[in-house]
């Protein structure tokens, strides 16, 4: 199996789905000739031509708005927002149309499309290029929010997202775009949307994360597990909405303790919903408060001061220790 970066793995998913289904097309800023500012769509315009890989004018609302039209007409557009920080320009098309087309017409029209967007910090980028705001999309009914954590699941989840009959926001942790490789099979692989994955079983503590937070979390788990001998169960959310509470609750029912690591600001984030679900289902099993290790509720700092704001490894380590010791 070839070892691919996440960028390459996503490219593979796009390429294979396009080869298989000519309803799939790509549109966005610089996705064609340039291959995307992160090179995610590299080579696809050469392979499929400029009518299937569209370099659009600079207008996010129209990128989603036209994709909605295409989807209603039976195509399967994959729209790219150059950065999630510019996706707010299309929120009204998402909230007002993409997520409602099915319910509005009771299924007569549907909106099977994917909006890909790199999100998150840690790459020393300019303002608006480092945010993590998955909670905004997660709260809006009628759409799904998927966040892969590595090359292999990115590929398999994107295939699922493209085939999904409903609109999906696919948020790509840009910090993980090239920072590591994984073996990704050439042959088709699809992972179900809406299912979290237990990536490591354990019995003393449940830790949950998604996207770029998975890597430091796994390191912290290794370190704290080594130090304390604790058996730590690690859950990769993969889909943020609909949230797979069953997997999380089942785990915490066994472990009694839980830490959630989230890059986004703390308040009104995804971690809060996880805590609410635990409250609903397994409150009486909790032996310690669920700990949120998150970004702070400040305006995302410019990169000169960003590093300590995104939960760094030592904070995660401290958090795991504290929760184990509670």
């Amino acid at each position: 199996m070839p070892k691919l970066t996440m960028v390459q793995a996503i490219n593979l998913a796009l390429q294979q789905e396009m080869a298989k289904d000519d309803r799939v097309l790509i549109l966005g800023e610089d996705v064609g000739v340039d291959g995307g500012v992160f090179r995610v769509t590299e080579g696809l315009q050469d392979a499929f031509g400029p009518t299937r890989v569209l370099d659009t004018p600079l207008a996010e609302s129209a990128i989603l708005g036209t994709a909605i039209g295409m989807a209603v007409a039976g195509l399967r557009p994959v729209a790219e927002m150059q950065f999630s920080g510019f996706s707010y320009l299309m929120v009204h098309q998402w909230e007002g149309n993409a997520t409602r087309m099915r319910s509005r017409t009771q299924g007569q029209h549907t909106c099977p499309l994917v909006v890909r967007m790199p999100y998150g910090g840690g790459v020393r980028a300019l303002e608006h290029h480092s945010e993590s705001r998955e909670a905004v999309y997660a709260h809006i009914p009628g759409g799904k929010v998927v966040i892969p954590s590595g090359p292999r699941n990115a590929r398999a989840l994107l295939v699922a997202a493209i085939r999904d009959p409903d609109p999906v926001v696919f948020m790509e942790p840009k910090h993980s775009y090239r920072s590591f490789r994984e073996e990704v099979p050439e042959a088709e692989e699809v992972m179900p949307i809406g299912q979290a994955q237990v990536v490591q079983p354990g019995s003393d503590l449940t830790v949950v994360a998604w996207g770029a937070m998975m890597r430091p979390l796994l390191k912290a788990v290794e370190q704290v597990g080594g130090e304390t001998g604790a058996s730590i169960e690690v859950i990769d959310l993969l889909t943020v909405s609909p949230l797979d509470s069953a997997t999380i609750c089942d785990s915490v029912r066994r472990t009694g303790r839980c830490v959630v690591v989230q890059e986004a600001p703390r308040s009104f984030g995804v971690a809060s919903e996880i805590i609410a679900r635990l409250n609903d289902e397994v409150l009486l099993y909790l032996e310690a408060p669920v700990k949120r290790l998150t970004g702070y509720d400040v305006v995302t700092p410019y990169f000169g001061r960003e590093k300590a704001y995104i939960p760094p490894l030592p904070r995660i380590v401290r958090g795991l220790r504290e929760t184990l010791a509670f």
Partner: protein
Amino acid sequence: MPRKTLAEFTVEFLQILDEDGNFDADLEPDLPPAELLRLYRGMVRARELDQRMLKLQRQGRIGTFGPCTGQEAPSAAAALAMQKDDWFVGAFRELSGRLLRGEPLTNPLYYYNGWEEGNVQPPEVGRRMLPLAVVVASQVPQAAGLGYAVKYRGEQSAVVCFLGDGATSEGDFHEGLNFAAVWQAPVVFVSQNNQWAISIPRAQQTRSRTLAQKGIAYEIPCLQVDGNDPLACYAAIKEGLDRARAGGGPTLIEAVTYRLLMHTTADDPRKYRDEAEEQEWWRKEPLLRFRKYLEAKRLWDEARENALRDEVRAEVDAAVATFEETAPWPPDRPFEHVFARSEPHLDQQRREFLAGLKEDADA
């Protein structure tokens, strides 16, 4: 090196049938009598349903509703000019066009009674029609996308997209027209300039002399027409559709018309405009004018008018009866169409909902 002229643009106006029934035989579109009568009938059906819905709303039998009276010409003309496979994309004042495209009279009643079922069309109608667009101008980029899709598929079909005068101020109007132009998408955009966006008069909405000239920004052919003149509307939209099918890309048409009634039944125009202005526009309204035209062509007379009105009113009566006899659809249906397949949390919430339903609904 003095200043030199780079580009010149003109914006034209088209009227074929004036408010007194005079018409320009040179410009008159070549429509067979049956089609002319279909157009008239379509406008009359919309007018009658509109007026009835107004009454129903006042009686509390349907909810808030936005009347279309006076604006029957542009979308009816579009429906006539369109082919079966063309996409119809409306804003919310295209009742005549929708009915001519085949929407049942009951649908608007269901819709304005707060039921999504009012958006479900007979399959052959719905397959190429989007539901009302409430988020102003958000349908404009969608229409560009539909246009791209039919072109991508190599279809000969095109798209007609309606919007209001106020809608031209939204960013989505701009972005959608720009995309359509860059893609040379086969879309005819028709802005129904009914002079008002709720209480904002046309002149305060934008400083441009015409709305048509906004097409210049995208190098889109543009034209202003008398929007109460069904013939001019037809000719302009037909020309746009022909251009679109021939690969000539989008067109922007400003149809100058008037919202004779309130914005919606929740609105009171007396707060912001004079009755005199309304009276003036009643003189120019499209049904009266088109009737004169049909009479001049000896296609119409008082007796036929009375027969048509009776027939249409009976149709509307029947639709209202069907509507009022329709049992409300299952209360938990909103759980059904969130996603194609349900999800565990929705199943659970649905059970919760159903368990309390009797008690809750009685409250």
